């Protein structure tokens, strides 16, 4: 799998570390135990397109937002952490 890093260009997956689902929002401190349990443990775990965090740990160290297909590993859209992903899943 090649991940196109916005800083470094297409790089092999060995340079990256998976950091989890990018679609979940961290609950507030007073949101209660159910919200925190849901955030920490429960997963959508989709079979198909998903958006996730990848750290370019052996590269520029940027945290990336990557839209990836969980069966084919196809990648459709990469952005830096604070920026929006553009294309819709194809």
């Amino acid at each position, binding site marked *: *799998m090649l991940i196109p890093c916005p800083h470094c260009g297409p790089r092999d*997956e*060995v340079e990256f*570390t*998976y950091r989890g689902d990018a679609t979940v929002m961290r609950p507030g401190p007073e949101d209660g*135990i*159910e919200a925190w*349990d849901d955030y*920490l*443990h*429960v*997963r*959508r*775990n*989709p*079979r198909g397109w*998903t958006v*996730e965090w990848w750290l370019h740990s052996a590269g520029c160290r940027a945290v990336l937002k990557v839209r990836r297909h*969980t*069966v*084919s*590993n196809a990648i459709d859209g990469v952005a830096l952490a604070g920026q929006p992903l553009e294309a819709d899943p194809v």
Partner: protein
Amino acid sequence: MAGYSGLRVFSEGLRGNSGWRPAWRKPEPKPSYDVIVVGGGGHGLATAFYLAEIHGITNVAVIEKGPIGLGNTGRNTTIVRSNYLLPDNNNFYEHSLKLWEGLEQSLNYNVMMSQRGVLNLFHNDAQRNAAIRRGNSMRLNGVDSDLLDRDGVKAMCPLVDVDNGRFPVMGGLLQRRGGTARHDAVAWGFAHAADARGVDIIEQCEVTGMIVEGGAIQGVRTTRGEIRAPKVGLAVAGSTSLLTEMAGFRVPIESHLLQAFVSEGLKPLIDCVVTFGAGHFYISQSDKGGLVFGGGLDGYPNYGQRGTLREAEHVYAAGVSMIPALGRLRGLRSWAGIMDMSPDGSPFICRTPVRGLYMTAGWCYGGFKATPGSGWCHAWTIAKDEPHRLNAAFTLDRFRDGRLIDERGNGPFHWMH
């Protein structure tokens, strides 16, 4: 007569092997059953077998989307053991190992159970201390464990490079009752025995929806029509999230790939199971002669059933570090299975938020050895609508309540167990 025996093999040999019959029927699905088990792998078939054998519930269907035994049951490294630290895991896996020890007689099927010993190597003081602690914990629970020193490892497995310059071997924790079994035969054996007790094994029948009415399960929709039952058990490792989503709730599971590899066939070389302590690698030799080995997860969620090269490279490198003689071997095949990874590395055998819906799931990469124990506890939970004490801790809500069973102490990261 349908039973298998040495005498029958001999007498069939004299009659041109003309008397063998299929080991299980291919029935059409009935409109309703007392229990539906979704998933025709080892765990699902074992659930059906124990429902019939122990609880007398024989009006049972096992529904499988393809042929039986081609999911993780056909994709593992066939290791059987019960060398766990934490009492909840230890008691469960020891119960499972005891079932393994009598499984061939229970099923009347040769699953080629071979208690050849499982040896976990350690390479430094901290690992040795952890091994001693785990070994003592096992002994306190009545499970066999032996600590080998460097010379003991060398005597048991001479090919291991105990003097490795980077990772010298200090010793190993050995469970002699651990070993391997023939994975396909486990699926076939449970299928044969369940079928003989009246269970319908329905292959090529994919579940497309769950029928939930008033918070209770009423059956499943499949590619071969609607099948109704007041109780449904899920045993669909890797796809648990997809089925629970159909039933309207989410689970603390991520699907990750785990790869396994087999080398070209060799004369007998390694007569036990050995695991490397300085990388993720374990090895045994199959009865066909191929060396079977595996490593860690690929590292990110995936349903593809194909492994990535980065983990393959790690496995081969670790293997050659542990046993340099492997360097001359050629790999023959590799494959990957989809693991249900839970946040603490321990499984779920439990009721669910939907009444009448049960699951055995979250087996991470330890499901094969659990096959009989999982089926046994899942069947108990389905039959009695409450868990047995052996699986009482394996609930979905243990994370919310802070009662994790975190064997490795890694915290709530599914891909790190």
